[in-house]
């Protein structure tokens, strides 16, 4: 499970690097960038459809008994899928709102001390192993999907917060001075200049948070939070390989699909 977040981080690092080199040569650069984008946009869904096809092929060619079948009913899978989606989207939405707001507050002029404290706390949240976090949260708040969402929020707030702070602090100071110098008010500068320019970096953080959540949401099953993880735990409990394989593949495909969706949203939101 932990393989996912780290591999996604690598993706982002390359994204950021090519993003920064996009400033100089215009024509060639943008053409290269566009082909790269189209590659990402088209290749990923094709790959995921292929994997799903292989999974279906595998399940059809493997002899399944009634226990297998019960776990692999479409209605079961669908409800687990929606639970997973709920866990991921709710926690990510809350994290995004919370962390971006916090990030904005921390980058205002008089907050460098608060910044280091909050970042340290957020780092703590991410450093804790997600299973431990889930179970600790369940001990305090009781089991259930709601608790799982709280745990996901604590776990994934750091990347969005860090990227919001980095994105806002990394803006060209001349641009901000010009904005102030021509008479924009702080709120106008924030909404009209700072946030639009920081969107690519913030969205990279949101993407990381969603990927963390989509993977970690599979652990919600341990505290009775539902989700696709239920399939894997069931498969382990009844010792059925097809169920475990189907659960694992679905978790992975779901994570990659979410990542893809977020990437597209990010492209649409970022400045041209």
């Amino acid at each position, binding site marked *: 499970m932990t393989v996912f977040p780290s591999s996604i981080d690598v993706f982002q690092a390359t994204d950021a690097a090519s993003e920064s080199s996009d400033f100089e040569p215009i024509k060639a650069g943008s053409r290269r960038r566009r082909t790269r984008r189209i590659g990402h946009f088209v290749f990923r869904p094709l790959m995921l459809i292929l994997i799903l096809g292989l999974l279906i092929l595998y399940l059809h060619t493997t002899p399944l008994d009634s226990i297998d079948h019960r776990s692999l009913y479409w209605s079961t899978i669908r409800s687990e899928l929606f639970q997973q989606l709920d866990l991921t989207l709710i926690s990510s939405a809350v994290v995004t709102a919370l962390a971006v707001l916090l990030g904005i507050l921390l980058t205002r002029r008089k907050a460098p001390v608060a910044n280091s404290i909050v970042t340290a706390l957020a780092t703590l949240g991410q450093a804790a192993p997600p299973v431990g976090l889930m179970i600790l949260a369940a001990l305090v708040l009781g089991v259930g999907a709601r608790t799982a969402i709280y745990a996901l929020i604590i776990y994934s707030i750091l990347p969005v917060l860090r990227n919001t702070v980095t994105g806002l602090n990394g803006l060209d100071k001349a641009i901000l001075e010009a904005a102030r110098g021509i*008479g*924009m008010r702080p709120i106008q500068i924030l909404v009209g200049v700072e946030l639009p*320019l920081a969107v690519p970096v913030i969205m990279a953080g949101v993407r990381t948070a969603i990927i963390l959540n989509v993977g970690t949401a599979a652990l919600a099953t341990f505290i009775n939070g539902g989700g696709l993880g239920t399939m894997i735990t069931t498969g382990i409990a009844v010792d059925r390989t097809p169920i475990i394989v189907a659960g694992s593949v679905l978790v992975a495909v779901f994570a990659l699909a979410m990542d893809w969706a977020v990437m597209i949203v990010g492209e649409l939101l970022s400045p041209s």
Partner: protein
Amino acid sequence: MALDLSPQEASNMGTELQRRRSVIELRDVSKHYKDAGAPIVDRLTLSISEGEFVALTGPSGCGKTTTLKMINRLIEPSSGQILINGQDVGDLPSHRLRQGIGYVIQNVGLFPHMTIADNVAAVPRLLGWKKDRTTARIDELLSMVGLEPSKYRDRFPRELSGGQAQRVGVARALAADPPILLMDEPFAAVDPITRTSLQDEFLRLQQSIRKTIVFVTHDMAEAMRLADRVVIFGPQSKIAQVGAPTEVLSAPADAFVASMLGSGRLVQLLSCVRLRDVSLDMWPTIAEGLGRDERLAALSSAQRQGKDRVLVLDDAKRPLYWIHSDTTGDSSKFEVDCKLELEATSLRDAITQIVYCPHDCAVVVDGNEAFQGIINLKGIRRSLIPLAGAGTTAATIGVEK
């Protein structure tokens, strides 16, 4: 309002009237930061009048940029008062104040996510202008700074060269037609050739828009070239000298100013002094259409003054051609090949022209082409010596004491 004024109040009225004429006034303005010992700006008093182009210059860290930024309150002064049109800058909310003052900075600071048009429209939008008024203004400004509107309007800042970006920066600052323009090293980040052409264009622009300009630069030559008045900041944030470029160049207040000006002082002086500032030599002239005898008489009287030629003028005193005596006993004409305009030509340009002129003598005319006198290298030399400082020889000019 009291109707009977005490003498004290009456004299206050007098200063009030004087103050109206100056657009920007700094009174005893200081700025010090808590952690630094010495103030960065120390009790500065300066008055800038309407339409004046003032350059603040001096070594880095002398407080020139701080002074500029205190005018639009990007930096708040620690003490003292800054007035714009007689009103304390602290009376307005700072963003309102800044919307009424154009601001251009070295790194331009265009908004990279907005088109050129949107960048220029930033202030009009803040002021809530109607859309068609803003659109018309964008096109007007882009042509004013030399960028074809249809070509550049929809481009993004990253598609512009440094010089083009700064043109847009100037257009953005001028968008709402503010009476005051603050410029912080605006031409420092571009290459020397672009810088010179930007300076020239900006001077031309200023001829027509007549803004009150405060211009910060560390480049003395730039300050001398552009400004009507130069404020030179010295050590300990004190003003070392204030004056017109010619005044400063011809009589540096002290060794510090002289060393700041460097050895190029005389050459800079040549660029600053215009033909209207020096006394021209007269030359024998006659009206056109006169007979042979009168021409020869004029020539012989000229020859008695040691001059071999006479200038022929038309009714409006416009120089037409030279005449001189030829071997046939009559006069022959030759064209006026070196003609200089009184107001615009600097001594530097005049020297260049005269050096290439076969007669070491240029005809000077005014804006209506009417003859004003002549200038030659000797005349330039003669007018330069008092300007370069009494008793100064070439060896001591610009040498630190």
